[in-house]
Every structure is written in C-alpha cells, then in structure tokens.
C-alpha cells in the first residue's frame, strides 16, 4: 500500500439481523458514511461476519483501492479478529481495520422508541471510526518464544488433574501446594456422590501419579511469593516454607548419603508437643512434627515451627538419616514458566457468624466437612459418627442446606450464589447415616434440591426411597437444650404452611463456600480479576471458561466458581489443554499496541519508568544521550506513560495522538 496516497476508507454497516437494524436505520447510516471525508466506499449488509459479508470487504479493498476499513457492527471482543483477517486477506495490513460498536453500545441499549436518536448516535460512531481509520498505520505483531514449562497452583483434585495432563503432554510442570501434602478437599471427603466411591480411594492413585510423574516437580509446602513477566515468559518466585525436614534429594545435595526423610514416623512418636490437626478440623491431635494423614504425597514429615520447642528428640530419633533440620529457613526459588493454571479451591464461610444456627455455640451443630471426617473410616472416630457433646451415637440428624448460600441478607457472611454441591453431598450424608446407624433418622431442610448432574436426580429419588425426611423451609434458628444438648430446629414447612419445631440429636450445616484464604492476593499477583461474587473471573463465562483476561493464565476448579468434582476435573483438563497450546506452538504473538519512544525528542527524564505498572520501560544510553527504551514484550499498551510524557515523546501504537485527536474532532466538530 502506498504510504503517501490519500486515505481511502471503506465503511460496512451490519444489520445483525434485527439486532441492529431493528433499532436504528442502517441504510441511513451507510448513506451518511458516503458523505464523510476520505470515504471511498460505503455499504450495508445483513450479516457482515458471514462469508459473503467478509468477501464484500476483500472485494472492495481491491476495487476501490481502500487504505482503511471500518465495520459498524458488534463489539470488537466478538468479531474484531474475523474482520482483521478479512482485511488481511484483502491485501491490507490487518491493523488497518477499525470497528464501530453500534450493537452493544447502541442498538441494544436504545431498543425502545429511540430509533432516530440511535441512528444519529450510530452516525457519530461511524464518523469517529472513519476519522481514526484515515490515520491507521501498518503494524507488525511481535512473536516471543514460550518457556517449555507450566505451573499449577493448588494441589487439589483440579490441580492434580491439570498437572497430570500437562505432564503427560510432555510439558515440564511445577505443581505448587501450600500445605504439606497434595490432595486438597477431596482427600478430606469420605465418599463421593452419586456413585458412593470412596473419595480417597479414587483420588490416591492420581496423587501417587502426580508424585512420581517424571515431568511433574511437586512443590508442596510452597506458596507463590511474586510473579513477573508475561505469557510465555513468566518468572515466578515461590516461598519454599521451612519444612524442617529434608527429602532424600535435598539430603543428598547436602552430602548426607542415604539420608533424608523416608516417612518412617520415628520422629512423631517421640515428639512431646501435641496440637490439633487442621486436616481433621481440630478433632484429632497431631504432633509438632507431623503428616496430615497416612496417604500423604509426598510422604515427608513437616515441622510446625510455631509449636516446636526444639527439644531435639526427633533429631535423635531420626538418627543417621539426618533428615531433620530445626534451623531451616524459608527459601525463595525462582521458576521460569510459559503458562500457569490457578486451582486454589474453596473454604467454608465462617458459618459461626450466622448466629441463628449456633455453630461453635451449640456443641452438636457441626459443618459438612467435619461430618465427612466423622463418618470417614480414616477419620478421628474411625468412621463412627458421634455427638461432640457426649460421644453418643446420634439417632436423628438434621441437614441444613443453603447454610449461607442463596442468601441475600447482606449480613456480610451470606452469599447470594448457589454453592452447587451441597444438595448432593447432603443427600449422600443422609444415605450414610441411615446406612451406618440402624434406626437413625435423617431430616433435610432445603429450599430446592438441585440434583442437576448425571445420575444425580436418580440419586435424589433413591435417598427419598430410603426414608430421608425432606422439609422445605429455611431454618430460622436452632436452639440447644441446656440439659441434653439436643437441638431444636425451627423452620416453616412451606409445603404444609405451618411452623415446625423438631428436636434432633445433631445438626450438620451445609455451609456456603467462598474463595480460599489468600486467593485474592494470589490472583492479583497474576493479574486475574474477580467477578462480583469474589471468585476468579474467567475470560468468557460460556466460551472461554478456563482462560482469564491475562494471557497465559488459566483457571481450574472451584477458584473460578462453585463446582463439584466432575466439573472440576473437566475444567482442569480444559485448562491444561488451553495452557499447553502456547507451549506447543512455541511462540506467542503479542498485539503490537506497544508504547514507542521517539528517542530523538525524549529528554530522558525517567518520569515514565516509575509509572509503568509492568516494568516495561528502562533508561538507556544511546549516542551519548539518556533515553527511554520500551521492552515490547512486557508492554501491555495501557498508555499510562504515553498520556503522561511531558515532552510527548511516547507514541502509543494503534492509539496514536493523531488518531485519537481525529476521533475527538470528528465527534465534536461533525454531526448533523
């Protein structure tokens, strides 16, 4: 394309069926476009994104010798790539394309009785786009190589599955887990619905696989400290928390032959300090040197330095293996990775703050994860469900659904969303007590039973037939009998239309869930947003549920929103697939919206350096002068530096000052 020729802009106005044409006069807009300066051709068409629509662009470029293309249609988030390719195929540089969003920003918000105003606004939008299009320049996207390694943050079932998939696809994968073992929430569960598989039995093989896969480096007891870089070239600094115990590899590195922790447990036997085990929600003890449970991966003990009295008994017990180092300090190793998957899971809300149900006030009110541990054979009671108040076997148990979910009280604890798996696990809980304890009655207090998954509705019928009582009503409050510690559950049975007061031995709260403690700090380090409900924000809720708006960062499992195990595993596999694509391609193309320093007029003041949120700018010496230089791969094109530069020496590609001024002028000076 000749650089010095007059701009010749082609304008294409889309009907989008009636999406646009139903609310404004498309033909009028196209006719108006023909009157604008620099417009060589204008047309309208039913669906510009269709193949004939795209062909119109290609043919017009050739026929009318166009230098810039304007399509007035939907949001560039939808079809900018489509029209850029059409522009490219027509023989122009693909960045010679500008989109006017007359659908989301016009017809859809001016649907009723605003036809003339909407048409006038569309003309404004087209006029501004044409003004910019006359100043568009050829730009070349930049390719950067991609590090052939990935990181997965969070070692629950989602993180494990994602790591296994990445590793099996030949990618070196770092699996980062904050606690001493991988396994996450799923390893705390007794059985899984609706198949009633033993949770740990089906998870353990995956944990073991993750532990010994040659492409997986298991980084348990690590946390993300700092993140730098961009897709293809992230540099992640981890905090390797002082574990107090060396694995065989670490021991060998220190010259201890045949040493390191072999998981024998001699240390824990002699440790004199007893603390509650958080894996069992404090219902069982552990020592100051501990493992969470018998099936941990990796099988390496951990010292709780907050509790350890450094008596040294464990060091003696460990003997020649010399695995224990009570003076160990945190370390901060760095990892270069191409892409990352966040899979940080969930916590329960602090359900004790829903005071009406008396959790932590009434001894026999427990939450659902505590129930899982109490009913689990490897749990603190060997699978015998007991009342915390007196150790007795309960003969009647109530399950309070939506304990903080679907709750609009705005008390700061309740969540407006559905936590999505509580209905199903509560049905499973009801089944478990009726099966394990002869004559034990199960009551489920519910708003709706949401049994939406495969074989879930059938499971619901099965539990009904087993004799579980279903009472449709939100539980108003739970009172404790001061003598027996039995619980009175008050609700309104909304099917019978009468108040209910049922005395029960035990109540289980199906607590609402919320993002893991620390998830907010983590996602900010990776530049991931949160949706209004606090969960991490996917790139598109339907069409890109694994991606985020930060290139190279993907989501798996509940950190993106409540989901059960099948959905978590499915999303993890999706995220792994998405995260492997840039690595397998080997390079990523970055949009060329970089800042460019016009070094001949740069004064080298350095003001922009501190402003840049991405550390993309540096001062360099060039021809004896200090000038700014942009690292294009780091620049996100945010424009902070360009807007600030006192000398006007920074040019924002594709958003240059002449382009923006032309748009503003077109808006302010044009119009009918």
């Amino acid at each position: 394309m000749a650089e010095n020729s007059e701009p010749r802009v082609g304008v294409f106005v889309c009907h989008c069926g009636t999406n646009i044409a139903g609310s404004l006069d498309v033909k009028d807009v196209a006719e108006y476009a023909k009157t604008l300066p620099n417009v060589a051709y204008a047309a309208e068409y039913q669906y510009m994104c269709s193949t004939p629509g795209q062909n119109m662009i290609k043919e017009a470029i050739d026929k009318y010798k166009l230098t810039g293309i304007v399509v007035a249609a939907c949001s560039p988030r939808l079809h900018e790539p489509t029209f850029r390719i059409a522009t490219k195929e027509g023989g122009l540089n693909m960045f010679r394309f500008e989109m006017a969003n007359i659908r989301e920003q016009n017809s859809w918000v001016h649907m009723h009785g605003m036809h003339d105003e909407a048409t006038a606004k569309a003309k404004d939008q087209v006029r501004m786009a044409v003004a910019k299009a006359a100043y568009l320049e050829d730009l070349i996207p930049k390719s950067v190589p991609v590090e052939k390694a990935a990181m997965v943050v969070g070692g629950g079932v989602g993180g494990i599955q994602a790591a296994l998939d990445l590793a099996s696809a030949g990618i070196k994968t770092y699996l980062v887990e904050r606690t001493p073992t991988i396994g996450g929430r799923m390893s705390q569960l007794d059985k899984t619905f609706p198949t009633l598989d033993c949770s740990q039995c089906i998870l353990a093989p995956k944990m073991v696989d993750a532990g010994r896969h040659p492409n997986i480096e298991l980084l348990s007891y690590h946390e993300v400290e700092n993140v730098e870089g961009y897709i293809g070239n992230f540099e992640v600094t981890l905090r390797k928390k002082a574990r107090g115990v060396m694995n065989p590899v670490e021991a060998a590195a220190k010259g201890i032959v045949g040493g390191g922790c072999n998981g024998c447990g001699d240390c824990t036997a002699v440790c004199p300090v007893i603390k509650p085990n958080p894996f069992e929600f404090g219902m069982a003890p552990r020592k100051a040197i501990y493992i969470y449970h018998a099936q941990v991966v990796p099988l390496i003990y951990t010292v709780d330095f907050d509790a350890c009295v450094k008596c040294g008994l464990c060091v003696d017990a460990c003997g020649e293996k010399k695995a224990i180092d009570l003076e160990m300090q945190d370390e901060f190793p760095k990892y270069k990775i191409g892409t990352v998957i966040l899979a940080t899971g969930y916590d329960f809300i602090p359900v004790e703050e829903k005071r009406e149900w008396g959790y932590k006030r009434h001894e026999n009110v427990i939450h659902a994860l505590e129930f899982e541990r109490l009913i689990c054979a490897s749990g603190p009671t060997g699978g015998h469900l007991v009342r915390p108040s007196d150790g007795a076997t309960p003969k009647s148990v109530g399950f309070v659904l939506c304990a903080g979910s679907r709750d609009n009280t705005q008390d700061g604890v309740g969540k407006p969303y559905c936590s999505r798996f509580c209905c199903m696990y509560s049905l499973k809980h009801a089944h478990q007590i009726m099966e394990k304890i002869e004559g034990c009655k199960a009551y489920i207090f519910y708003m709706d039973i949401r049994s939406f998954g495969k074989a879930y509705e059938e499971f619901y019928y099965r539990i009904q037939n087993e004799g579980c009582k279903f009472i449709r009503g939100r539980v108003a409050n739970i009172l404790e009998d001061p003598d027996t510690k039995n619980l009175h559950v008050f609700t309104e049975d909304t099917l019978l239309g009468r108040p209910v007061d049922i005395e029960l031995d035990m109540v289980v709260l199906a607590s609402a869930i919320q993002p893991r403690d620390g998830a907010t700090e983590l996602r900010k380090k990776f530049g991931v947003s949160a949706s209004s409900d606090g969960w991490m924000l996917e790139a598109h809720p339907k069409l890109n549920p694994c991606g985020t708006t930060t290139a190279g960062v993907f989501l798996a499992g509940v950190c993106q929103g409540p989901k059960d195990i099948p959905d978590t595993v499915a999303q993890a596999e999706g995220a792994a697939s998405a995260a492997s694509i840039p690595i397998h391609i080997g390079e990523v193309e970055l949009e060329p919206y970089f800042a460019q320093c016009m070094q001949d007029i740069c004064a080298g003041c350095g003001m922009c350096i501190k402003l840049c949120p991405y550390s993309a700018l540096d001062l360099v010496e060039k021809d004896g002068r200090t000038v700014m230089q942009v690292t294009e791969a780091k620049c996100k094109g945010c424009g902070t530096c360009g807007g600030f530069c006192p000398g006007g020496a920074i040019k924002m590609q594709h958003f240059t000052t002449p382009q923006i001024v032309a748009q503003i002028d077109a808006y302010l000076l044009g119009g009918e």
Partner: protein
Amino acid sequence: MQTMQNMHEYAFFLGCIAPNRYPGCEASAIKTSAKVGIKLLPLEGASCCPAPGAFGSIDLNVWYAMAARNLCLAEQMKKDIALICNGCYKSIYEVNHILKHDEELRGRVNEILKEIDMEFKGTIDVYHLAELYYDPKVCGVQKIRDSVTTPLTGAKVACHYGCHLLKPKKERHLGDTEAPTWFEELIAAVGAEPVEYRNKMMCCGAGGGVRGYDIVHALDITNEKLINISEVGADAISELCPFCQLQFDRGQIEIKEKFGDVYNIPVLHFNELLGLAQGMSPQDLALDLHAVDCTPFLEKVL
C-alpha cells in the same frame, strides 16, 4: 456526684405504659441516670410514640407522621432522644432512621407536619437508655457498678431483651440478635446473678398488636417463656420494656385465670433494679403497683 457540665443530656421520651402503668420505671430512669452522668430532660408536648404494632399495622403514614412529630420536638430542643421502652424504640428510632434516608418519604411526612408548622430535619439520634448505660463513651458497665450502694446479691435474674430493641438486625446497631450478653453484664453490675434459660430470645408474646388482637395466643407464648424461666429457678425477670413488663407481670395473673398455671415470678424493669441497687426504696419505685408481688424478691436482696 458529677457536675452539670459533665452530664450527657437527652430529651426523655416517656412513652405511655411507663407513666400510666409502671410509674417506677419513669422515676427510676430519671433518678438512676442522674447518678451515672446522664440528665434526662422532659420532652414537653410528646404524644404516644405511636405503638408500632397497633398503628403501623393499620396506617404507616400515621405512624411516620406521629413519630416524626415527637422527633421534631427533640430537634427543637437540639437534644438526642433517650427512651426506656422497646416499642417506643421501634417507632422513634426506626422512623428517624427511615426518614433520614428516604428523601421522598420525608417530603410526604413534612407535608403533613407543615399543618402544625413543624419540619423533620433529621438532626438528632435516638437511643434506648439501656444502650447508653452499656456504652462506655456515655456511661459503661463500670460506672453502673460504681453507682451501686445496695448490691442485689443472691438473686437469680432472667434477662429478657425484647424483640423491637434488637430486631430486625439489619435495621439496628446493637449487635448479636441470637445470643447477646450485654444485658446480663448490666444485671451482674447491680450485683444480681444473670441466668441463661431456654429460648432466651423468644418474644414476650405481647408485641406487634398480638396482645390486643388475640390475648390467648399472646399468653400462650408468654407461658412458654415463663416455663423456661421457672425451670432455671429465676427469682425475677428483668426487661427493658414496660410493655414486655406488662405482659410478664399482668400476664401471670391472666395465665393463672385462663390456664391455671402459677409462677409468681416478680418482673422488674432494669431501671427499677438499678434504682433498688442505688438505694431507692420500693415505695419510690411504686413496686406495690406490680401485679405479681415483689416482696419475696425484695426480701432476698435487701
């Protein structure tokens, strides 16, 4: 004794039941508060709050306007309101809150008030005297304890908070509505032993117009509450609301007549207990006007 300069001054909204049924509540409010640095000034010209259940259920506009008129009187005095009745609290506190935040409604109410040359401006706040007693910025538990000359030692007292004081939670600011303990702290400060009992936060039975509409239903609720209180051997019930007091006190006579159940548990407003503990005589507190004889309780503590 504190100097007048250090006194926190409030416009004292009396309500109806205290002066008409339990004058001891009124007298003790004025006298006990003076000993802990609170001066209650007469709110002259005040009407009924009006009763939230009876008026609010029938015509909200009347409820808003009458409560707003009482608020205007205090605004003219440039004093915050203190009161001693949960029903009054519901009307006066809540209407003040609503009118401060709802410009459209405020305009409508002011249209009505214009007929008597008044305007609601939203310049004052409304407090229950008990929350001022508990608030260390105004009084605080320690000051209550220090004011006691005759500790009510040896008496078990069951606390009844009352519904309108704490609920609905999102329209109040007094914290936990399920298992609060600040009233118990005040009871302990006067030397008595607060006792926990089953379903403490249950309604007295009277509020919301239930007593007026269906006395048997109201008494049934009261009876359940009295069963729970008698189970823990309480020597007295203390509350923060003359209407709750009426329900527990007169109600015991009515329960005896209608259901045949007899409890004989004296019912005293916290102000009356504080008055006793500060040395006021049972005559000063007009305890002889209570329906249930207070003598056994008095013999235990005095």
